[in-house]
């Protein structure tokens, strides 16, 4: 690689952002560092085909210098001919040397490489290891769409607050549906694990009801919960219950009947009656705890009584 280190006028640098990865971190710490110690690593530049110079590496440093009203800076200018992809490799490599890439940055790197006509296989085989990622094509599928999301979502991905599993679905949503989901995720403060669960349920219920996500979330049943004074976690549970009732009506009806019947039986403390998961098996489980022979006898008496009164039969009929 041929290069020369020189001091350049910052105004020689054009606004060509061919190699730029959007930054999701605040600039202030870098500005403080430059103010204190000066520019420790020179900018890496190349002659721009449009004339002047363009940045290969150091967009944030350039931005910080400009905001600090520097007019000149030290730079290395790459002069040997190289393809954009080869130059971008240098930029990624230089960044990887001193930090890890977040999901949004990787997504932008994929987007840029694709624009440079680099094939997907080369991206995951050759560029992913450079960014300290495994050579995994599935990772490319998961990360690539992030760069097509609105800025708020990209920021959430950069801060590891967004489940990668929902990204593909989010990209396919209309703007209004995506905004509605954003507001919902903010309101419920859903962790990454629950984002996918909620989005899938919402999408299924919207399809079953032939309506949009946006309209569904604006319906009174949902609005009532969203606008209520409940805590985010209580709202999440309540909304999930509503969604389940719409998504699995027959199951929810049976579950409700079971719960009501058990409630009417008034089981003593320490005794529970459970059906098989999702009623898919015909067996039920009775569990009880006891601390003395007398308590043990009481539990058995209660069960005996339920049997005599036909309540056990009623339960069996239900499953």
């Amino acid at each position: 690689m041929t290069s020369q280190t020189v001091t350049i006028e910052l105004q020689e640098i054009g606004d060509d952002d061919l190699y730029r990865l959007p930054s999701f971190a605040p600039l202030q710490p870098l500005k403080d560092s430059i103010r204190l110690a000066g520019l420790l690593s020179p900018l890496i530049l190349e002659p721009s085909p449009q004339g002047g110079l363009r940045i290969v590496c150091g967009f944030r440093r350039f931005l910080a210098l400009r905001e600090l009203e520097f007019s000149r800076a030290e730079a290395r200018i790459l002069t040997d001919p190289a393809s954009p992809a080869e130059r971008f490799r240098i930029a990624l490599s230089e960044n990887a040397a001193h930090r890890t890439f977040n999901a949004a940055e990787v997504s932008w790197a994929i987007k840029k490489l694709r624009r440079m006509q680099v094939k997907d296989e080369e991206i995951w085989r050759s560029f992913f290891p450079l960014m300290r990622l495994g050579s995994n094509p599935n990772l490319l599928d998961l990360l690539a769409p992030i760069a097509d999301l609105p800025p708020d979502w990209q920021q959430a991905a950069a801060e590891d607050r967004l489940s990668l599993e929902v990204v593909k679905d989010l990209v396919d949503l209309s703007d209004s549906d995506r905004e509605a989901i954003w507001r919902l995720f903010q309101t419920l403060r859903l962790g990454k694990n629950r984002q996918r669960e909620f989005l899938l349920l919402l999408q299924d219920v919207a399809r079953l009801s032939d309506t949009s996500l946006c309209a569904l979330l604006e319906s009174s049943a949902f609005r009532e919960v969203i606008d209520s004074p409940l805590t985010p976690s209580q709202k999440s549970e309540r909304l999930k219950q509503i969604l389940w009732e719409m998504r699995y009506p027959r199951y929810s009806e049976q579950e409700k009947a079971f719960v009501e019947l058990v409630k009417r039986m008034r089981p003593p403390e320490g005794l529970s009656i459970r059906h098989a998961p999702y009623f898919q098996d015909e067996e039920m489980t009775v569990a009880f705890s006891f601390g003395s022979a007398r308590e043990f006898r009481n539990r058995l008496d209660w069960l005996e009584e339920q049997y005599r009164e036909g309540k056990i039969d009623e339960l069996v009929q239900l499953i």
Partner: protein
Amino acid sequence: MPAVFHPRIIFVEEAVSRSPLAQRVLQQFPDVPVEPAEADALLSGAAGRTRDLRGAILLAKQRGPFLRLCPGTKHHLCCLYHNLDVVAGCDLDCSYCVLQGYLNTPLITVYCNWDDLFAELEKKFSSLNSFFRVGTGELSDSLTFEPFLNLAPELVSFFAERRNAVLELKSKNVFVENLLGLRHNRRTIVSWSMNAEAVYQSDEGTSASPQERLQAAQKVQEAGYRLGFHFDPMIWYPKWEEGYREIVDQIFRVIRPQNIAWISLGALRYPAAFDDVIRKNHPQSRIYLGELLPGIDKKLRYFKPLRIEMFAKMYSWIRSYTTEAPVYLCMESAEVWRRSFGWAPRSSAQLKRLLDDRVRE
């Protein structure tokens, strides 16, 4: 009538390149590009990433056994069927097809070492004192590639001579011409996977219509074959009763009950991980919107009362036409059998015996 599959490219493993079946396929498509290949490399997940394998055929050597006992599923009754894997892959593109999950490649693999196949079957059928129901419709559609593979004559003739085995060709297609003039000795059952017209329209890809399947069934009935019908997977949709009742009526309008070897019922079910595959490959489909919940075998299945309702109604409609053709459930618990049909086999072995006896003769 569905179009006959035409390959875009043919890959050939050196080990079978001179086999009669490989030669036959290559001669059928003189203009299709041919490439030497290794099956392992082509069937790996990475191969599908680096090149488009849609419309491709791989002529390969079956290195494992051709014949496999159906693995069944825990806590469910199984009819102890044997799958004969001569082709893996299908061109019909049904939304619910489990091959999307199991094979994970659009490549259609044709196993060409048929000397090994027949040697294996000879050995298996002669060494064990058991009865075998064998089918080629598990990893592929038994008839969809028949116009150019022409596998049926050899298979049907082979089974015609067996006393303790029958062959079942299971299909959603109509290419039965190869079967019509064969001496089959009633040891081959030609079966169709049937569904309601609405399900065919929305989810059965390029399959033949139920009407076309029935016309093909009539042809093989006239040629003296026994027939099978498989309502599997039954799909719940708001007007399912009308749709399924209609297709049952249509079958019995043209098929004589005494010619029916068996009828099976099975409701949509699939491993939970397969849910994403359907959503991704068939975003327009609505089948995954059913009340599918994890069953005791961990597969997603319709909520049990829904399944029981579907099976019970189908059973009564079928029984209104025939009491002699066995009707059985595929991969269901004894409880679901009892609640749907009013009885249940005591074991998988008893279910096997029931079906064996129907075609033992």
